[in-house]
Each structure stands twice: as structure tokens, then as C-alpha cells.
């Protein structure tokens, strides 16, 4: 049984001698990422707790601008960092621990594209709806009273 492993990570920046070495290398990387998350989660630097860009008002292009830059306008930078780091971790778990790097591209695309597309769609519709329900509850003339 010939098992060819691709032994470089970070676009070939780091090349390991054996598969075992690569596994330990990935573990060190994942540990560092988790440590960064934990440290940020405990200290919560003030700079990262408020959004950096304000939404633009009025007009079609302002709305377009708000949609395109929505992760920076409506999300705290800290939370954005957490989500990006999570996706980075997920990538290395799938690619190196689950050997996705060594599979055929057809298998890889079949699994990853399907899941990523459906999950993105699901997240989009549910969060959009959640935000809308929030608006309904919290407008000036809301007919629902929850604070009693």
C-alpha cells in the first residue's frame, strides 16, 4: 500500500521530513492559535471591542457599501478575529488530520464545497431573520413588551 503524503503546509513555506513530523507541526500550530484565542478572550483589548467603521447613511451605494463591508461594520473586530481563527483551525484539522490534502480534488470539492455552500446559506437566512425579529421587538412602536 503506497500512501503518498503531501508534506508541506503554508503553501510550501514549511516542509516536513515525515508525516509524523507534520502531525506534530500542525499540533503546535493549532495550540498557538487556541492560545491566542484564549488570551484575547481573557484580556479583551479595548481597541478590538468597538467596530472600526460606521455604516454609511442613505442611497443605493451606501447600502451596497454597508453590505460589502458588513463584517467590519456590524461585528466587533475581536469576534471577527475569533471566527477567522476558528476557520483556520478547521482548515488544518480537515486538511492534515483528516488527510484532505492527500485526497483527489474531486473528493475534496464534493465534500467541502457542498458543506460550505449549504452552511453559508443556512447561516445567512437564519441570522438575517434573527436580526429582523430583533427589529420587530425593539422598534419605537413595538406592540410586544418584554421588560416587566
Amino acid at each position, binding site marked *: 500500500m503506497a500512501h503518498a503524503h503531501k508534506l508541506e503546509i503554508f503553501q510550501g513555506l514549511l516542509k516536513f521530513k515525515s508525516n509524523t513530523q507534520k502531525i506534530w507541526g500542525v499540533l503546535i500550530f493549532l495550540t498557538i492559535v*487556541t492560545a491566542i*484565542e484564549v488570551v484575547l478572550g481573557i484580556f479583551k483589548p479595548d481597541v478590538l471591542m468597538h467596530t472600526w467603521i460606521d455604516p454609511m447613511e442613505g442611497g443605493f451605494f451606501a447600502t451596497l457599501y454597508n453590505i460589502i463591508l458588513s463584517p467590519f461594520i456590524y461585528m466587533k473586530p475581536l*469576534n471577527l478575529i475569533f471566527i477567522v481563527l476558528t476557520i483556520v483551525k*478547521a482548515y488544518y*484539522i480537515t486538511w*492534515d*488530520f483528516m488527510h484532505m490534502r492527500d485526497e483527489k480534488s474531486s473528493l475534496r470539492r464534493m465534500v467541502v464545497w457542498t458543506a460550505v455552500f449549504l452552511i453559508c446559506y*443556512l447561516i445567512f437566512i437564519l441570522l438575517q431573520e434573527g436580526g429582523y425579529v430583533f427589529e420587530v421587538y425593539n422598534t419605537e412602536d413595538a406592540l410586544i413588551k418584554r421588560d416587566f
Partner: protein
Amino acid sequence: MDTTVANTGTEGKTWGGGNKPLGASYGKLMMWFFIVSDALTFSGFLAAYGFSRFKFIKEWPIADEVFTHVPFLHGQELPMIYVAFMTFILIMSSVTMVLAVDAGHHMNKAKVTLYMFLTIIGGAIFVGSQAWEWATFIQGDYGAVQTKGGNILQFGEKVMVDGEEKFKRISIDEFAVTIASERAEHERKNGLWFVTEETLPPYSVEEIYKGLEANSNILVRNQIINDEGEKTVLSREESLRQIKENGKLVVKGANLVVNEYGTSLFADFFFFITGFHGFHVFSGVVINIIIFFNVILGTYERRGSYEMVEKVGLYWHFVDLVWVFVFTFFYLV
């Protein structure tokens, strides 16, 4: 056995079923399909959690104030530490699993056995940790009063820490006044035999109110998150008024009905998602144990391939993958 399926006379032909276009065996492919569908199940849960959170974005509990406990370090507020430990344990057991798969490729039975054993231990530690996390969450720590509208009012006082004014939580046990009451818990032997009653709350709202009146330093805070990202602390008069007029039930800890930390939806999702994940870890451990014994018995040695370890490994890594997302969306964001 070889003759039953292996040779169909179509090897090498593009059409006819003889080749493997995806370069993976049937079993591995099916495991990948299962993982995709399971990933969609979990993302359904997490997206539903996001929906509820967006719906109550101004009053959602702050995770750092909920998960502050670490075993053996009683009474200290250490958010993140314990869950970081759990995450590390699970990643570590993923590593031993992938090392077992690697040893399997080299047909090294002794190493596969050792690494499978370590993986099982890691999984067991994780499930145990999660049980402890649940127990702590269910037990609760400070207690709170639920209002008629289902909102939560918590207690504390303002203290100066390093020149900064901070809100320090106070447990209801510290200030509640005991009032002799006629109300006894309904049991089958002292009342109607065909109805039962839940355990009564530790205190009545009246007892909490009397205690609050007697201690002028104690303030109430509600669930609304202010501009600084903290829960709103009410003035002394407003505190007394809220408890007197709106207080309905004293709650301690969390379950599927009430939750002292805030919105009860938070507890529901916590139990459901971490429970579903914990069940995956548990079944993963059980499957790993079965495979572990198969390895010891030499089943895969005789079969000439340790691919079964690889398939189970895929499932185990997937469990780790899910935890990475649960960790982010329950404890970090």
C-alpha cells in the same frame, strides 16, 4: 472471499464500475458522506443558536460571567481556562488518533495499539470534563430572581478594584432573610396522590426582598447590555421597586425551564448543543474501544490493512472539528 466482488472484468475501463474515480474506498467515501450530513446537522443547531442570539442580542448572557469555574480552584473567577483545557485535550486526542492512522499505514500493530489507547483516554477525559461543566452550570452560583416577564434580575454591589468601579456579584444565600412560612413542599403522602410538585425554590421572593431592604449596599442588575458591553446596574430605589413589583420566582442554577444566568434559551441551547456534541464524543469513544480490541486481536493485521482505523479516525477528527466551532460560538464570541 476475494472472488465474490473483486473481479468484474471491467478494471481500467472508464465506464463499467471497475475503477474508483474518487480514489477512495467505499467505506471511506461513506464516512465522508456521513460527516457532511452530520456537519449540516450541527450547523443547523449552531445557526439556530445564532438566530436566537440575534433575536435577543441586547440581553444575551455574557459567557465570561457564566463559565468561570475551574476544578480545585473554588471561588475564583477564571473564565476560559477550563474550556481551553478541554479544547486542548480534544486536539491532543485527535493527534494521537492521526498518529495511530499513520502507524497503521506502516502496519505497526504495537504503535497503533498504543495510540488508540491514548485516544480513548483523551476522549474519556473530555467527556468527564463536560459532565463537570454541566454539573457546575446546573448547580449555579449566585442565584437570581425571575420577573413576571421571564427576565432575570441578579444581585451585587459596587466595589473599587484598582481604582475602577466594578460590579461584584453577591449570592442570594448571603443576604436572604428567612421568614417562617406555612408553605410546605407538596408530596404524595401529604396531599393529592395523583399530582406531584417540583422542588420548591430555596427562598421566596418576599425573603429576598426583606434581605435586599436590610442591606443598603446591594443593587440589582437586569439583562440589558449597555454601551460598555456590561449588564445594566439599577439604582437602589429602582432595585427595590423591580424586586417588589416584578419579582416572581427565585431561581438558582439552570435547567431547561429557568436559568439564573439570563435568557432560558441560552441554557436550552447550551444543553442541547454541548449535549449532542458530548454524545458524539461518547459514541466515538465506544467505537474507538471496539476498534482498539480489534487491533489487539489482530483483525486488521490479518486483513492486511488498517483502513478501519482511518475511517474511525475521520469520525473522531470530525468531533474535534465541531468542538472548535462550539468553543468559538459558546465561549468566545
